[in-house]
């Protein structure tokens, strides 16, 4: 399956609008608590941090914990005063960082 993040937010908004942003990151979110067939713990591998910024300014961050289900889905809102770019980052336990961007035009 395609393993790229899913984003949903309006392409356009009016100045001062509060917009809804939906993000979903395909990820196993292996908790580290499960055991495999041989009784060995399956190593933890989760997205441990999510951040969203708009034109370089922080909008929303979250620390994710092992009990969060696969494919973490975060929904939040932001007030937009100017056109610009939302930047999203997901940090994996293995150190890799997945990023995505989405532009919005504010009139």
């Amino acid at each position, binding site marked *: 399956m*395609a393993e790229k993040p899913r984003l949903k937010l309006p392409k356009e908004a009016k100045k001062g609008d509060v917009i809804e942003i939906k993000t979903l990151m*395909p990820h196993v979110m292996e908790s580290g608590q499960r055991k495999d067939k041989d009784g060995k713990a399956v190593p933890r591998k989760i997205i441990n941090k999510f951040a969203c910024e708009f034109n370089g300014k922080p909008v929303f961050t979250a620390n994710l914990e092992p009990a969060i289900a696969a494919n973490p889905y975060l929904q939040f809102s932001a007030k937009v005063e100017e056109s610009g770019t939302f930047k999203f980052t997901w940090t994996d336990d293995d150190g890799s960082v997945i990023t995505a961007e989405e532009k919005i035009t504010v009139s």
Partner: protein
Amino acid sequence: MRRAGMLAGAAAVLIAAGTFAMIAVDSDANAQSKKREAPLELAGSAAASPWKRYANWPQRDYSKFNTLANLASPPAPKEPRKLAGIGTTGNAANGAKLVADRTRGGSCLACHVMGSAGNADLPGNVGPDLSWIGDAGREDEYLFNYINDPRVYNPETVMPPWGSHGLFNDQEISDMVAFLKTLKSAAPFKTELDDPNKRPAPVEKRDNLDSIENPGMWAVDKAQELWKEKTSAGFSCNTCHNDPKEAFKTWAAGMPKWEPRLKKVLGVEEFVTRHAKATTGAVWLMETDENRVMSVYLHFLANGAPIKVDTESSESKAAIARGKELSSRKLGELNFACTDCHGKVANRWIRGQWLGEPKGQYDHFPTWRTSLLAIWDIRQRFQWCQVNIRADELPPDAKEYGDLELYLASQNEGQKLSVPGIRH
């Protein structure tokens, strides 16, 4: 030579069906049907062969019992057994454990409310409420035989023959009889949700076509990439179908379909396997990721189209009749037919699972399973139904599944496709 023979066969079928226009000019008819016939790989299996059950499914062997392809279950006894010959007395405390033991075929509570048994934790309502059975004046022998094999009293029953099929031994059944006789008061439900008669029917409200709500939608993106991926032969789907949105806007709603060259009903998934092999050379066996995403996409393109399968041709009629027959065949150790759960006792609870009617069980396949993080096509759903009732499944390309799928699709005529669905 084989091809010529096949075309002659097709012409004969047309005559039989009374379609005269097509064969008015023989050479034209041949040219036309040749043009319209999609290339298919006719040899071999469309799935892994020999078929091996999914690794994370129960691996028990149910070969002593009926499958959709094979009759093996022992015949129903004609007479109740005499308790004197059994000569055991029951241990009610052990019986209380057994009726709630979910490892032994699902437990009695799956279908019956039974007073305090299993702490009245989410029982089903397929069978009658047994909370007062201890006051009902039933003989031990009657209760014993009802558990052992209820068919001796009611040939139409949907209850499994627990004793005849070896799920419980005589002593265990006697223990359960002893427990049943202690039941003399209403079930102490902790919440209304525990009471199957008050538990509201499940409603699926998620937006299955929103790629954030439904990860099944990712298959649509993946399939569009696959569509253009060239095989080593240099071909892709796009080589011939460069406008899939237009070409397939209703196609999947007319599937499955009788395929005269293979003499069986083909669903979208098997069609994809055989057509891809014959054209691009891609090997997209059924129940592999490529096949599943392609099936999701082809159904997705026909979303909104009402299901309309061929129910008129003599081959389709015969296949539907076979499918109907198969749907009432008792299968597996639990001895259930499709028409038991999704007919006789549809719209009731088996444990916490709602038993739906056939209508509405087809328009969303392939569907995303949120509990499994996986896409299931209809054939895998059929397979799970069987393993779940302790019957051996068939390979996904089995002709019996073709007949059953066509029968199911015919019962869903007019339902609009909405794929990928999203289900627990």
